[in-house]
Structure formats: C-alpha cells, structure tokens
C-alpha cells in the first residue's frame, strides 16, 4: 500500500519512517506561476506608476497576461491537495496563524485590483465597441451577443468625454500603485510559506520572501518579453501577407520598430532584477556556509554534491550567468533577448525546483537523504495529478486564457487606433 509521495521518493541512509517528498512538482509550479503573475504585473506598473513611457505597449500586454495567469496560480495547489474538494475551506474557514490561510484574502484582493485596473484601461474600448455594435445595421446573432457582452462590460459607465477619461487615467495610476505592494505580497507570502517552516533547514530564512519576489519579477518580465516577441513575430508574418490599404494592414517597419524598442528596454529592466535576485541567493548560500549550523553538513551534501548539477549548472550557469552575458553583450537583438528569456525562465524554474525539491532532499534526521524521481509515466491518480498531465495542464492554461481574454480586451488595440489617428493627421 503506497503512501502519498512514496511512488517518487527513494530514501538513502537513515530517514524517519514517515518522511517522503510530499511536496512535489505542483508545489514547484505554484510559486513559479504566482511569480509570473506578480512579475508581469510589476512590469506593467513600470509604465502605469513610474511613467516609463517607452514601455507603454508591453505594459498593457503584461497587465492582461498577468490576469490570464492569475487563475492558474491556484491550479497547482488544487492539484496537489489530497482533498481537493475541501480546498475552498482555506477561503471559508481560514486559520490565520497559517501562512496558507492568507491565500484567499491576498489572492482575491490582487484579482480585484488587476480586474479593476484592466477595466479602467479598457473602459473606453468597451464603450466604443458597444456603441459601434449598437449602431451597426443588419446585426447577426453573434454581433447581438457581442453587443450584450460589451454593454455589460461597461458596467453602465458610458461617459467617454475627455474629463471622464482623465479620471480613468488617474484611477489606473492608483490601482497600479496599490497593485505593486499587493503583487509583492502575493508572492512574498509564497516565499513566507517556505521561509517560516522552522523544521526545514534549507527553507528557513527571512530572506526567502525577498528572494522569491526578486526571482518572481525576473521570471515575469522574461515571460512577458518572450511571449511579446512571439506575438509580435506573428503580427509581422500577418503584416507581410496583407496588402497596403486593406483592412487590418499594418506597416511592417512600424511593428519591427515598436518590438525592437520595447524588447531592448525590457531587457534592461530584466537585468537589474536578475542582479538583485542572484545577489540575494548567493548571500543566502554564503551565509549558510559561514554560520554552519547543525544542519550544514546535510545541506552541504545536498547543495555541493547531490544537487550540484541542478544548482550550479542548470540554475546558476544556464539560468543566470549565460542569459546575463547574452543580455549584456553589446548590440542586443530581439532574437537574442528572446532566447536569453527562455534561459532565464528555465533558471527561475530550476530555482523553484531546487528550493522545493532540494528542501526535501535531506531528512530531518540529518543522517539520510531523499531522491525525487519525476513520474514521467503516470501509473495512478497521484502521478497523473502530480505528473506530466498535471504539469501540462498548468503550463498551457494561461495561454488559452490569454487567447480568450484577448478577444475582449485586445492588447494591441490602442496601438492600432493610434496608428490610424497618426495617419489621419498626416
């Protein structure tokens, strides 16, 4: 009879009989996904709060993407619960001495803030679309449904005079301003969940929430940069197919120019946060070695022997140093920045892996070790939920959600409109 975790755990030397790797791949995915949410939001706030005007285009993209990622942050938690149908009790009967109990409040506050901000950003678009549909002659059923949806999305606020839009703009600034600390809290508290486990020598450090926030911002920016580049490449392809003067035509040069500009600037912010994240992680390692508490012998064995490939090669070399050099190297191109982002995303994933799985790689006895073997071939429900199908579901959902969201809050609409206006002026 298998106990939870037994299927993927190998014990070596003396380990307490009840110890297993109970927190597996989904708990690696959880901080990874919330990190992406928080990071994408911070990127969008660079424009909305700090007025980095050059990031206007990617900011809107990042905001909507952050919203698409949000429901997905919850999925890995549900997939790892032994009683997923009772998961709602975390929200209904929270026990506030537990870090996890804060999840419901932080998560819903954050969701409300992002939704509000998106609404203010897109209110004008909702009103314009709904009005256009209302005035459209010979409406089909689909147009009727769309009109209904967009009218509902306006929430009855139809005023799009300049003063009203000015107020919207202010509201966006305020929501983005409140959003930054809440986004940091959303992810910092995920770090706190680990950092406050005093029983785990690797996790317990007050640096953990800060490290988590920094790496979250790194991963969020990297993902936005990557997806943004891919979407823009797609738009370039489309632009090539369409003839000038036809509906939806866009100047190839213009797209290329915007993409180039946004990607290069984003890459700079990415580097700043990479330096912060890397410094904190190294500080943590050095501190542990220097203070050499009782647990250090076991930790050293894990960090410098058993997990050295995962930590030094995969996380630090491929995930940190290599992309950093790629970004720093002169004459950066969009392609190079995108490839560097892939390495960064991989590096942050390995960081989550090394924290979650690495933290369970040694026994509380400090005499023994536990190896985690990812269940590539699912054999029971447990390894379906916490194996390839579960991971695939979590990884793919944000993109599906983003696709659907984009139907209602199109991330590039403003840019196209402005382009048209510029043409009219000319």
């Amino acid at each position, binding site marked *: *009879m*298998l*106990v*939870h*975790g*037994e299927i993927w755990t*190998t*014990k*070596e*030397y*003396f*380990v*307490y*009989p*009840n*110890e*297993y790797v*109970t*927190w597996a791949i989904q708990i690696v995915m959880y901080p990874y996904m919330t990190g992406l949410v928080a990071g994408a939001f911070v990127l969008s706030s660079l424009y909305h709060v700090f007025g980095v005007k050059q990031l206007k285009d990617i900011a809107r993209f990042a905001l909507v993407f952050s919203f698409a990622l949000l429901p997905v942050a919850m999925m890995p*938690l549900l997939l*790892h*619960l*032994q*009683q997923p149908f*009772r*998961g709602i*009790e*975390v929200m209904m*009967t*929270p*026990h506030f*001495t*537990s*870090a*996890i*109990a804060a*999840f419901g409040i932080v998560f819903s506050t954050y969701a409300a803030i992002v939704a509000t901000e998106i609404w203010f950003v897109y209110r004008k678009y909702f009103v314009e679309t709904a009005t256009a549909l209302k005035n459209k002659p010979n409406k089909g059923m689909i147009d009727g449904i769309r009109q209904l949806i967009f009218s509902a999305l306006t929430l009855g606020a139809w005023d799009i005079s300049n003063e009203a839009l000015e107020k919207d703009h202010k509201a966006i600034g305020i929501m983005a301003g409140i959003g930054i600390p809440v986004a940091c809290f959303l992810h910092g508290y995920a770090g706190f*969940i680990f950092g*406050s*486990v*005093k*029983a*785990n020598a690797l996790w317990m450090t007050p640096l953990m929430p800060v490290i988590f926030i920094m790496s979250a911002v790194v991963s969020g920016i990297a993902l936005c940069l990557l997806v943004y580049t891919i979407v823009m490449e797609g738009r370039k392809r489309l632009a090539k197919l369409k003839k000038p003067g036809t509906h939806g035509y866009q100047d190839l040069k213009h797209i290329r120019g915007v993409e180039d500009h946004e990607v290069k600037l984003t890459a700079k912010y990415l580097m700043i946060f990479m330096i912060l994240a890397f410094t904190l992680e190294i500080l943590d390692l050095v501190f542990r070695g220097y203070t050499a508490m009782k647990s250090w012998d076991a930790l050293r064995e894990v960090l410098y022997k058993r997990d050295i490939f995962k930590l030094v090669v995969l996380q630090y070399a491929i995930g940190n140093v290599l992309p950093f050099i790629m970004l720093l190297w002169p004459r950066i191109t969009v392609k190079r920045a995108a490839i560097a982002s892939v390495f960064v995303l991989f590096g942050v994933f390995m960081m989550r892996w090394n924290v979650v799985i690495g933290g369970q790689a040694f*026994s*509380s*006895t*400090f*005499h*023994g070790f536990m*190896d985690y073997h990812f269940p590539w071939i699912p054999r029971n429900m447990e390894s379906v939920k916490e194996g390839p199908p579960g991971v695939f579901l979590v990884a793919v959902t944000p993109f599906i959600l983003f696709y659907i969201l984009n139907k209602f809050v199109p991330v590039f609409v403003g840019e196209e409109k402005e382009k048209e206006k510029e043409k009219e002026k000319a």
Partner: protein
Amino acid sequence: MERRNFLKGAIMVVAGAAVPMSALELMDPRDVLAANPDLKWAFLVDTTKCVGCGMCVKACKTENGIPWTANVSRTWVERYVVTKEGKVWADCPKQARDGFTSPLLDENSAGMVSIQPDDIAKGFFVPKLCNQCDNPPCAQVCPVGATYKTPDGPILVDRTWCIGCGYCIQSCPYGARFFHPVLHVADKCTWCYHRLHHGMKTACVGACPFGARQIGNLRDPNDPVTQAVLDDRIGVLKAYFGTKPQAFYIGLSKEVD
C-alpha cells in the same frame, strides 16, 4: 414618563448592568478551566529499557487502524550504532514493526550495512512518537484549523476537515506526521486520546513488555511520570526548535535527535 427621566433611567440600568456583566467576559468559564486543567498528559520514554522488540509499533498500528503494510507509523523505534571511530549509524526497518531481528543496518537504498561487533562503541534503541508539543508548529500552520491542541495536551486532526495540503507534515521537525494511505488526510500519534479518556493507557504503553514507555498526568504530583519529570535528569528531542515537547526521555544520547 418624561423623555428626560426615561433616558436617565436607561443610562443607570446600562451602567449598573455593565459591571456584573463584564465579569462574564473577564471570567469565561472555559478560560478558567483551561488555565488550571486537572489533566496535562506527559509521556516518558526510558531509552535504557528499550530492547527494540517492536511490540509498541504492532500495538499502535492495530489500535489506530494504520495499514499494516503501509510504510508509515504513528510510533516507531530507532536503532543507533556508534562505532569506536565516532561514526553514527542508525536505522528503522519497517518502522521497527517486526522488531530488530538482524544485526545488519537497513540503510534504505544504500543497502544493508554490517558493522563488526568489535568496532561498536555503543548501541541502543530509541522509541519515538508524537511529542504533543506545547508550542506545536503543526497546529500553527494548518490553514483550516483541522489540527488543534486539546486542553489536556495531545494534538488532534479533524479527519473531516483536513484538506491534505501537507503543510503540517513539512512543519513537524520530528517526522511524526504523514498522510493516511487510505483516508488521504494528515495523520499522527494522538497518545491514544480515545483510550486515555476511558481511563486506559495508550496502546504502546500497554504493549511494552519492559516499561520503557509510560504516560502520566503532570497535574498529579503522585504520578510516577510527574515525579520522574521533576526529579530525574531527562531530555527532550530538538529543544532548539522551541516546540516545547511533552514527551520526555531518560538516557537520551547526543547522537539522537
């Protein structure tokens, strides 16, 4: 009645009633009872008496419905072997369910380790179980309050409420918690709370042929466990975590943690 008089009267009634009513708040009978409970369970393990027969583990698994073949247990026995060179070996084959019948140490995937009797400086057994900490990290981290501390000590799990997040399992420094393989909720030693409240001892205490395990009431000064805790030189496991364990050990060696 004039409005003025009515208001005066009302103020007097409220002010007058406030004082005796506040006593109810100041002296909640539950708080008063909890401050001075007549029961406070403590466990005493005399490691010098343990021979590693595993009867306690057998009794526990049977009493508490932990599947016999599942590789988890609410209580277990560890064997320590310290060589003359100072190297510490330890093992716990099948939670010591079947006792220690082989001189070979079961080091899991590292295989069976044989140590020459001439090289051994000392060897001993240590029974383990939940420490029912006074400052329990498991109850602290439960996000839904399914794990809670009873007024008389033991920490229990509400099986109908546990969501199975595993946070309590991670937070226990003693490895006392695990997922029940059938019920899929967190499980742990309760010091047989159901038996204690029927005036019985725990299953493991009852099964130990050598008196290595005892349970007693710290509020009773004549209880042999209380006397041992007060008079003898006893230790607790991993005191540095600040969990304030309520399982006390006689003859604890520095190799044990």
